């Protein structure tokens, strides 16, 4: 507690955990004018930072309800001069936007379900089942995680083309169906739960798949939620894979569609309300997912409070 200067308060934060270890006397001593100023400075800084992080999204939503002239003349304001839903009307009634949304939804749901199943199956086998070559399979999975996705753009197209899967739902979904990082997460999780329950079931005569499906999987809910979050977010936000796996307008996903909106139609005026509305809508599903599982995503906070 030697000299927490106001400017350094931020840096001091990580040691801010210590007061609880001190006696109340020491703690009361802390609430001097200087530390009060420090507190105010800290909150002021946090509020300014939070504003920088949130304001862009507020202005995005506000602008999507503005007219084009309004968006150009007063870009900062959070209140539309004249409130209009023209952008949304055009998106939903006079464009392929609903189709893009449907395509994204189908792909995301199938990919998420598939990943949860296949990834936990493999994770369980690698964590628990003893079989020849297990080490090699695991090493291969870890090795695969190191291959950057961008390097696979051309390769994936080549194989999809070769297999006749180019420009089809199968080609969009299959390559995303398994995720090496997910296998890794599940394996680690299965290794962390005690084996005794399964042993019991196995002695009672349950087969391997039965043990996995009815006993192990229900216990793995926390890890499964992680997989759901990762694969939902990953496949909903995926762009490059759909660029190289499809070309027909009927298979356009939200990411690809909105990207074409952003780049292709620049010549026809700026259309910021329309583009921002499209971007806002495509953010909603992941935002909802985020707020549902906020606890899990931010679960680090619980430990901090009780610690």
């Amino acid at each position, binding site marked *: 507690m030697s000299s927490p200067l106001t400017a350094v308060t931020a840096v001091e934060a990580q040691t801010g955990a210590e007061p609880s270890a001190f006696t109340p006397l020491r703690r009361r001593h802390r609430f001097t004018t200087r530390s009060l100023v420090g507190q105010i400075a800290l909150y002021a800084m946090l509020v300014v930072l939070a504003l920088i992080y949130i304001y862009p999204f507020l202005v995005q939503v506000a602008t999507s309800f503005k007219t084009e002239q309004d968006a150009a003349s007063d870009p*900062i304001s959070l209140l539309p001069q004249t409130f209009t839903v023209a952008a949304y009307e055009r998106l939903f009634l006079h464009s392929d936007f609903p189709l893009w949304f449907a395509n994204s939804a189908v792909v995301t749901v199938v990919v998420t379900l598939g990943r949860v199943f296949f990834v936990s199956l493999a994770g369980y086998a690698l964590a628990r089942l003893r079989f020849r070559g297990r080490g090699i399979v695991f090493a291969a999975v870890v090795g*695969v995680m190191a291959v950057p996705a961008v390097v696979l753009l051309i390769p994936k197209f080549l194989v999809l083309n070769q297999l006749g899967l180019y420009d089809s739902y199968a080609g969009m979904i299959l390559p995303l169906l398994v995720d090496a990082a997910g296998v890794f997460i599940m394996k680690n999780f299965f290794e962390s739960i005690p084996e005794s329950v399964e042993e019991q079931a196995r002695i009672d005569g349950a087969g391997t798949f039965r043990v996995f499906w009815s006993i192990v999987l229900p216990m793995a809910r926390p890890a499964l939620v992680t997989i759901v979050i990762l694969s939902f977010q990953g496949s909903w936000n995926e762009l490059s894979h759909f660029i190289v796996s499809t070309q027909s307008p009927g298979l356009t996903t939200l990411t690809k569609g909105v990207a074409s909106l952003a780049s292709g139609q620049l010549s026809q005026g700026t259309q910021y309300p329309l583009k921002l509305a499209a971007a806002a809508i495509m953010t909603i599903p992941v935002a909802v997912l985020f707020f549902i599982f906020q606890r899990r995503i931010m679960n680090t906070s619980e430990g901090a409070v009780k610690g």
Partner: protein
Amino acid sequence: MSRPSPSSRSSAPIATSTTVAPTGAPTRPASSRRSCSGGTRRGEATAGWLFVLPVILILGTFLLVPVLMALWVSFSDWSGRGSPLSPTVHVVGLDNYAAITTGGGLQTRDFGTALRNNAWYVVLVVPLQTALSLFLAVLVSRRILRGRGFFRTAFYFPSVTSSVAITVLWLFLFSFAGPVNAIIAKLGAEGPNWFSDPRGIVHVALGGLGISSGPTALTDGDFLGVTWWDWLSGPSVAMSALILMAVFTTSGTFMLLFIAALQNIGVELAEAGTMDGANAWQRFWHITLPQLRPTLFTVITLGLIGCWQVFDQIYTGTQGGPAKTTVTPAYLSYTAAFQNQNWGIGAAIAFILFLIIIVFTLFQRWALRERPVSRRRIRAYQPRRTEGATPVKESAS
């Protein structure tokens, strides 16, 4: 037991309808169950292989095979017509690699420019996002902090949005008449025309000092068709906007990693530091930061890997413009193959990019390697030791 039933109902038909390869896996274990139900561990090997089969098949088909095929294409003259494995395609050896690395032609210049652009992107984004995320984590890790959840949510939220959505938003924010320039105007200055400004920011700064062209020593020599003077131009103004975007969107994710790490660090060492009279900054620099080394390694590595893969933002936002100053190797590889039908060149660029990423990862691993006493091990032992030790101490005193 009631939990898995809904998902079992929905995932089974999907597995059969979408794919030929993995269908066998979910059904076959059911039959192998009968065979292994006699002995407790019999049939385990079969089940093990069946369980990992879908993963192996899909990763093999869409990762391993593609990489091998692309490696072949990078050594061939395939033009995009028919199968790259057909007999009409010839091996051209290292020609594709030579075209982009030597000779100073258009291909080389484009590749050099892309490397230059991305190198500046990496140089600025990685330190900025690491520092900012650590700073945010430290701020919101204070034990006594009102609205902790709100602040964490606010900082993390940009991370969940898609790169496409955030790029669309960024194009608006940094448009000439957009909010950022409006705010700059309120502050009494004039903002640049962000996404149409190809000037490198180092060149702009030097221009401000009256230096508009480089010394001949720098303008005469070149590397990959780009003069040294142009290598040192800094990111273009357009690229700078994208750099800010990357820092904005990734700092939240890395903040979570740092928050978790900060929690795992015991308070004891910092307290000991306080006793020894270390001030807040000294405690952070000499006690906390060294303990964060593993997380720091993770964040910097992930940052490096991610930054060399910039693609979505370019595809959605700038398409490489203005004046090719936002072309990245990833985007160049895509345009070379899919737009210009130079598949061999595109694949060669992708593999050079792959190499770059591997080299950076290895270098990072070496630079931040753990010294003889493993910090992770120290950390792993800490909680247990204190739990066991403190009550004893207290009862003794």
